[in-house]
């Protein structure tokens, strides 16, 4: 198997790439953990508005250490700050926003994504204690569901698969994957490759992917700022 350690994108680069597609004025929910990083890379002149499940819309960046207020946190329980324009609301209202289709984009992590758009990201199914949080609500309801993820697991197994073997978070919900090697849309045909990093061949990329990669129109180079590597 090809060793991608040296060529694959860093998490920061993946997050940067995902951030480029967020339109000005979009309402965005970022999953807890790695996806939170996307907020750092909003392109100049495009201002996204971030929603967090625990009842805050239009919040600001992390406070300096020592300036946290633990009543002002995001869904990952990390401290956030106020923006001019912030609003607070209770949990049922917060998920009314989610379920009602008012979010433009949700960006989540993944254990597995199937070529049908099925997502598994809440339970490994191996006897660990399951924890679903707001993921199942988000994936059914935001107008666009994107995943950011390493292209393969730590042991080199594909995370982009024919059929998910882990418990599903949602059925047919993901429409775009930003991986450490490529940008892939999910359409009727399955995985449609839009961009790949220059350092990997199409054949090698296919060998690391658990279902066929289709081409439809021009294939772009996936280029990210080197300083984020």
């Amino acid at each position, binding site marked *: 198997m090809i060793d991608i350690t040296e060529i694959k994108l860093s998490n920061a680069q993946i997050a940067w790439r995902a951030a480029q597609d967020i339109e*000005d*004025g979009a*309402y965005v929910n970022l999953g807890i953990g790695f996806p939170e990083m996307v907020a750092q890379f909003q392109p100049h002149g495009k*201002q996204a*508005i971030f*929603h967090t499940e625990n009842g805050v*819309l*239009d919040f600001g960046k992390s406070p300096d250490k020592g300036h946290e207020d633990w009543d002002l946190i995001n869904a990952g329980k990390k401290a956030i700050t*106020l*923006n*001019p*324009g*912030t*609003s*607070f*609301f209770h949990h*049922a209202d917060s*998920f*009314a*926003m*989610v*379920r*009602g*289709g*008012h*979010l433009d984009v949700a960006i989540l992590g993944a254990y597995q994504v199937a070529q049908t758009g099925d997502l598994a990201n809440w339970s490994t199914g191996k006897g660990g204690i399951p924890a679903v949080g707001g993921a199942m609500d988000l994936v059914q*309801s935001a107008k666009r569901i994107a995943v950011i993820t390493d292209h393969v697991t730590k042991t080199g197994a594909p995370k982009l698969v024919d059929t998910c073997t882990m418990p599903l978070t949602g059925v047919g919900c993901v429409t775009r994957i930003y991986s450490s090697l490529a940008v892939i849309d999910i359409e009727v045909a399955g995985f449609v490759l839009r961009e790949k990093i220059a350092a990997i061949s199409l054949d090698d990329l296919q060998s690391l992917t658990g279902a066929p990669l289709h081409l439809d129109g021009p294939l772009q180079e996936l280029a990210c700022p080197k300083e984020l590597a």
Partner: protein
Amino acid sequence: MDKTIQTAAEAVAQIPDGATVMIGGFGGSGAPIELIHALIDQGARHLTVVNNNAGNGHVGLAALIEQGRVDKLICSFPRSADPGVFVAAYRAGKIKLEIVPQGTLAERIRAAGAGIPAFYTPTGFGTDVAEGKPVAVFEGRSYVQERWLKADYALIKAELGDPHGNLTYRMAARNFNPVMASAATTTIAQVSRLVPLGGIDPEHVVTPGIFVSALTEIPNPAQEEDLNRAEAIYP
């Protein structure tokens, strides 16, 4: 991002013939009179209107009906001090009426905004309004299944608004406005005062901006009750 629009006319310009339009308010309180009058001037026809009532006198919703723009009205209580316009249109067969119990109307609108296609309510069980609807028993009690109620547009009236569309309301003028804001594809708010971003305490926002497409400042808005006491007629 700035959702503010200069005039009521511009705010309602895109509403097409045949649109379903929710109009906030309970009687005159919270009724967006200036937006309704702008919609009359704009000329859209064959509208389905969702409102708690059916207009009063010859202004606001009553005027919209009087101008022959409303094909169907979905409401809970088509009576008012002066319901003549609606009554005449209804008796002449010019307007269809769907009566919905007030709490069911509010919850159907809330459900639309919250992505809930159907829910069960005890309201109306065993009555005419339950006719043709699925019934289910939960824990020994019978309930009627009701469906969400969506709209293409919502015209609402708020007190303060900021450029992101965060809104507050004034006393009982809140009523249907916040739920309607959440249930329409496009929500247009008239606000009595436009404040800068940050001008509304985040704890006091009632409608977060995510539910608002556009807002326009109408200082000193007309109160339906005052217009009717002055026997106003629009246009």
